[in-house]
């Protein structure tokens, strides 16, 4: 036997558990929802720490809005259907190729007493317009925030963490990005990379 034949024989014992296309699609959907929940928790923390006594909008059930949404640096019109009873939403817009894109999500936040409540319209809007990270197929990495597009490909440290300060008028956002392993933002300081994911 050649070395290649021996090698292939040795490693042919490795078999992964069966994966289905349905499982892959389900995981994509699940991750979008998880991302929404994580953002909601971060918002809740800001409210508690700030202690500003923010008043939340009254629960008025289903709402439909046409909104202006920043998608990867481009502003586009989108139709947003909100259900403030459970904090869920669905969003429909056209991408740069003119294809209709539909996405949904939802989540909960916790008030100062630790009680769970649905996200409000303002919180969902804040999440939809939050900074986003994209990993392109040419291995470059980009942060998008409203009309800003920042390349961070070469900005990761030896621990694969990148710290990005985004300024937009009077607003400053501190962002910590773990390479292909999530990100977190704060208006006050860079989130500790150990505090998420």
């Amino acid at each position, binding site marked *: 036997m050649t*070395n290649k034949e*021996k090698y292939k*024989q040795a490693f042919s014992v*490795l*078999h992964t*558990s069966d994966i289905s296309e349905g*499982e892959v699609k389900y*995981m*994509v959907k699940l991750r979008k929802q998880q991302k929404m929940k994580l953002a909601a928790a971060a918002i809740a923390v800001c409210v508690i720490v700030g202690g500003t006594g923010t008043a939340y909008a009254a629960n008025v059930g289903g709402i439909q809005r046409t909104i202006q949404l920043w998608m990867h640096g481009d502003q586009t019109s989108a139709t947003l259907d909100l259900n403030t009873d459970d904090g869920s939403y669905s969003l429909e817009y056209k991408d740069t190729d003119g294809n209709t894109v539909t996405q949904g999500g939802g989540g909960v936040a916790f008030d100062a007493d630790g009680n769970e409540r649905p996200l409000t319209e303002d919180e969902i809007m804040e999440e939809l317009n939050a900074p986003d990270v994209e990993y392109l197929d040419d291995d470059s990495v980009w942060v998008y925030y409203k009309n800003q597009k920042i390349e961070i490909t070469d900005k990761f440290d030896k621990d694969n963490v990148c710290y990005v300060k985004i300024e937009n008028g009077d607003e400053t956002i501190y962002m910590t990005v773990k390479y292909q*392993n999530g990100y977190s933002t704060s208006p006050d300081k860079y989130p500790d990379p150990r505090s998420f994911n």
Partner: protein
Amino acid sequence: MRQPVQELIERYQNNLYAIAFNICKNQADAEDVVQDTLIQYYTTSKDFEDEQHIRAWLIRIVINKAKNTTLAFWRRNRRSLEDYIETLTFENPESENLFEEVLKLPEKYRIVIHLFYYEDYSVREIADILKLSESNVKTRLSRGRSLLKTALREEWENDE
């Protein structure tokens, strides 16, 4: 071109798993990495030239994700490598010996060795996938072979 995810799963899931396992040395981590890679294929808008382009792209992604997993701050408490190897059914003791010796190699040699001997990639193709120079790949291949030869003696041929 794009290929349905199901076709890629049927064709490549075990190859991707073998690569991921080669790096992670952990069944659960390797399975997570394969799933993450397929999710990335499903969500990417990239247009591929042909099936070989897709295969090389999947391998590059699975290697990057597996490396990231090994660098993670936390590692889940999972079954040890030795326990997992005991569950595998090798055709003969030489195969098991080879398997174990490959996993003892430094990671940078292991990946190159695996792509050459298991995936049948050429030095140039491996250099392209790993973003290394061809001379660097040749060096790693040569050192990996040399370590295997030392460990396996007559069970490993001189094939340089």
